[in-house]
């Protein structure tokens, strides 16, 4: 995602709340401190499809917001 961002594409990372500190630190390490992190509830692994859809429902509006902001 860092490479895509550096090439001018709109990119974002889905990140569960438990991993937000790691995600934030890694964005800085890879030179894209403003890389959008789409925050969802932990965990993402081991979920049934209903829960996955629920997480997607939380992430999608954040993604749309990122895309609109980047395009404006």
């Amino acid at each position: 995602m860092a490479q895509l961002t550096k090439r001018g594409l709109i990119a974002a990372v889905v990140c569960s709340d438990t991993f937000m500190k790691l995600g934030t630190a890694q964005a800085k390490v890879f030179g894209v401190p403003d890389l959008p992190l789409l925050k969802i509830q932990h965990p993402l692994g081991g979920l049934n499809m209903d829960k996955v859809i629920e997480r997607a429902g939380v992430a999608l509006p954040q993604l749309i917001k990122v895309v609109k902001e980047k395009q404006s």
Partner: protein
Amino acid sequence: MSSLAAMLQAPGAMVQCDEDPEAVYEFLCEKGWSDGLPVIPPTPERVERMLAYCDRDLDQAVVKIPPRFGAATPLRIAANAVMAGCKPEYFPLVLLALEALAEEQYNLYGTQATTHPCTPMLIFNGPIAKEVGLNSGNNVMGNYFRANAAIGRAVRLALVNIGAAIPGTGDMATAGTPAKFTFCVAENEDASPWEPLHVEMGLPREASAVTVIAAESPHNVNDHESTSPEGILTMCAGTIANTGSNNAYYDGQPVMAFGPEHAQTVASGGMKKAEVKQWLWEHATIPLSKFANESIERRFRRKLADKFANAPLDTPVHMWGKPEDLVIIVTGGAGKHSQWVPTFGNTRAATRALKRADGEFVKSIHELKRG
């Protein structure tokens, strides 16, 4: 190359605190530069003594350690080696291990940040291991021996202090492992019926080398009864076969560390290492039906569909990918025990030989002393 004195004058190169040992301990723990245990204060004088056994530029990174990708220069590594309790002559082995960890196939980034309880297992071979006092006998994976304890600890401290493998932010291990304090062994080459690991990896016997593996804690195999190769190996296979191992799902190179007595029994009928690997791969299996239904449907049927999409429930699941990927060593002292060491999975062992600047294998650690 900068002089040590000049490097220590750089902003942030040094910090000051009370010289009382308890105060130093408190200070370093508060800073997060710690594994939780007391350390030797890395004063400039001690760091300089450590660097007496370094033939590299002191300010050139030998590896950038993820997840921070901090530059692991000899100077910084030496500070961690002092903290860990290393003698200066251990220092080339600490550097060597970190260089091996930097090799791409090891996947240091993944192993540092994963939720899985893995840590670098350092396996030393060759004459230098004996020269610096690395234990390969009784209690080889336990406490007491300074070289094993301090070299493994120095590597771990570097991974935390330089790489920022800090629990909860950079090291996301769910539970971790006690092996994260240190996991450093030498192969008991004198007691092995087979060629040593570094020779198997293509190096001459007189070379000294480290092999690094992203390992879990060792799991014991107790067998006081078997007198045949098949007996010992059957007990090993039973210990290896478990549903929770990463190696059942991913590539990776787990380790079978035979105790010398078990190794002698296994080799008594003439079995070579390759035959032992093949035997264990064939026999250390679990029928697909023993895994949870969700695991079968979501992992085996989908993610491992090339093998298991329509596989019957009695299909054997092998405990690692290919027979030859098993790493076999002989280590430890007297007794009827061996150790099974599962690994992270998305990782490969990396072996690196200890060489001088001119490319020759190091025959004595003192060849690397400056001046």
